[in-house]
């Protein structure tokens, strides 16, 4: 495919607010996971919580959209000068020529959880002042971001569970390819809520300790929250004062067609996605310098991904999961992994697999147990979701 420029980017997650903080934490090998300290989350687990959401000043004109998820979106838009970069692009292309394509798995459902607790005892009605459409709707995220950024181009929320925000890159790239827009705000936001934490607990996929992806004693996930955004444009369209940050070189996507929540044990769908991403990027396996693994910490996911990665990329490509630092940010996991891999290119770092004690002895791929410093040109990031939804994204250096 023709590469696309990433001309602005931001990430807010448990490892930091903005790319500089996250990069510093990555270099320091510092996890953002902590014992659950959310008063309304009654589960013994570790979480990748973003501080400051409760006290954030939310735009008064958009108060109907006020919920934890849109607060985190707002924090993301305000980080790394992201909203300013979009405003400059909007002035150049026109607000109607910039699409918004964002992933989320549960949007503002935390608001609905609280509203269900406050149902009228007699009628069962949800409380006044609860704005379901503006908070609970999946589309609430894209709707809010469009309003906050004053964009009027095409918009969609992608919700393919934990691959949502990787798939958003693919859909947005095609909107640009079909000339349905000139640029796109791409990414995803997911926030902590009781539904997902309790749901993963019910599936026995939640670790009480901090998650240990790819470790031989791994016992499930820790859930985190994140907002990640990028602005993508056709190559060489950005202003000289704002040179591209990274390049989107390729993507791959597939279905497992196997089971709603368990991966195909041979990782066949994941292999298809990675092979397609390499083909579209015109790269061979040995040109990939680093792989950001989906690596959730569940026994089945990590094993299937190891089979797939070693089959497609061999045993030597350095790979790690960063979910030990961020937690599994679900619908935002795709963009989180893509941007952490992108930080590897920008800062010349191949981050170690956080929280690892001993790599699963059955694994064939090269899981990094220490951080490597050195030039990184091309990276691949995986994201897999319930429903057997697989995406791989390949990024390259901007120049």
């Amino acid at each position, binding site marked *: 495919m023709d590469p696309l420029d990433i001309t602005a980017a931001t990430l807010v997650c448990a490892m930091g607010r903005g790319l500089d903080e996250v990069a510093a934490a990555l270099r320091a090998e510092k996890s953002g996971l902590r014992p659950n300290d959310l008063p309304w989350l009654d589960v013994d687990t570790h979480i990748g919580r973003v501080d400051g959401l409760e006290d954030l000043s939310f735009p008064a004109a958009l108060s109907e959209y006020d919920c934890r998820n849109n607060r985190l979106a707002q924090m993301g838009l305000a980080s790394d000068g992201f909203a300013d970069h979009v405003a400059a692009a909007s002035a150049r292309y026109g607000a*109607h020529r910039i699409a*918004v394509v964002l992933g989320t*798995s549960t949007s503002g*459902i935390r608001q*609905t*959880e609280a509203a*269900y607790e406050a*149902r009228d005892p007699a009628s*069962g*009605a*949800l409380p006044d002042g609860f704005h*379901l*459409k503006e908070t*609970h*709707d*999946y*589309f*609430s995220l894209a*709707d809010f971001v*469009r309003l906050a950024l004053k964009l*009027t*181009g*095409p*918009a*969609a*929320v*992608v*919700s*393919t*569970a934990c691959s949502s925000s990787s798939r958003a890159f693919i*859909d947005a*790239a*095609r*909107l640009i*390819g*079909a*000339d*349905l827009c000139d640029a796109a705000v791409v990414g995803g936001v997911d926030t902590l809520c*009781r*539904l997902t934490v*309790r*749901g*993963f*607990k*019910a*599936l026995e996929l939640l670790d009480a300790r901090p998650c240990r992806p790819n470790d031989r004693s791994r016992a499930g996930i820790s859930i985190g929250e994140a907002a990640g955004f990028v602005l993508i444009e056709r190559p060489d369209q950005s202003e000289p004062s704002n040179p591209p940050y990274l390049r989107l070189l390729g993507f791959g996507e*597939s*279905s*497992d*067609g*196997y089971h*709603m*929540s368990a991966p195909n044990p041979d990782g066949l*769908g994941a292999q*298809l996605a990675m092979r397609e991403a390499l083909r579209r990027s015109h790269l061979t396996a040995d040109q990939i310098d680093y792989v950001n693994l989906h690596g959730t910490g569940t026994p089945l996911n990590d094993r299937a991904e190891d089979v797939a990665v070693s089959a497609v990329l061999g045993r030597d490509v350095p790979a790690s999961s960063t979910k030990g630092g961020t937690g599994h940010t679900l619908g935002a996991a795709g963009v989180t992994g893509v941007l952490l891999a992108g930080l590897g290119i920008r800062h010349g770092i191949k981050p170690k697999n956080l929280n690892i004690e001993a790599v699963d002895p059955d694994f064939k791929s090269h899981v990094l147990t220490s951080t490597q410093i050195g030039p990184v040109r091309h990276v691949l990031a995986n994201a897999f*979701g*319930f*429903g*057997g*939804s697989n995406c791989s994204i390949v990024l390259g250096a901007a120049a």
Partner: protein
Amino acid sequence: MTEFAITGIGVVGPGFGSWDDCARVLRGEQPYEAADAAIVAPPILSPRERRRASPTVRLALGAATQAVEQAGRQAGDLPAVFGSCHGEGKVTHSLLDALTAPEPVLSPTQFHNSVHNTAAGYWAIAHSSQSPCDSISGGDYSFAGALLIGAAQVVCEKRAVLVVAYDAAMPEPMNAKRPMTGAFGVALVLDQCGAKGAICEVQCVQAPTGAQWAAVSHSELNTLAAENPSARSLALLEPISRREPRAVVLGCAPGAFHEWTVTPC
């Protein structure tokens, strides 16, 4: 120019169980008799999945099966884009309700069946398909949103794509806060212009303005379009049913419109 052909159509909605039924009503050949949508579990699902499939999954897969059959395609060969405002509203309600218990215990099956892409996942599983299945929400604009994403894929990848939109009213108390009516599923197989067996070709360009939803001539169906996001597809299906060349303006987000020009083949 974003252009594509439509080679297969499926509809499941209140008062009709197929595209042929729906087209006869849209042409005025048959009076509209509103009735609950006949949502039957498609035989493509295994008995276990049929038991587990929610009404929304059945709705989506029913429409998709019709469209793929008409197009004469193998389902597993087609990438798919599913679109729905709320996806699995009934399952989500059940989980939200369970969470209010003092010591909540969620059903693990319900939890993984609550994701927006449950219908997409069941579709891929039913056909052992490794083709990518997307799942889009555009709120009230979910049909046009999924159509736009699907059309872009046809243009960029030069391949046929299945687009499915489905929406059903959520249970109370949620429906009172965001009212929707009925259950409506629509599926279109999009292909490249010039494709064999095309029903019509469609060109899409950005439009400066438009109505909140495009009007349907039939008054009861127009009401349905106002009250169910996927039924907004009826405005596009009307000229197709009548084999009339016509341009229809659909919103894919608040204030974002596209003109879809239908040319019958």
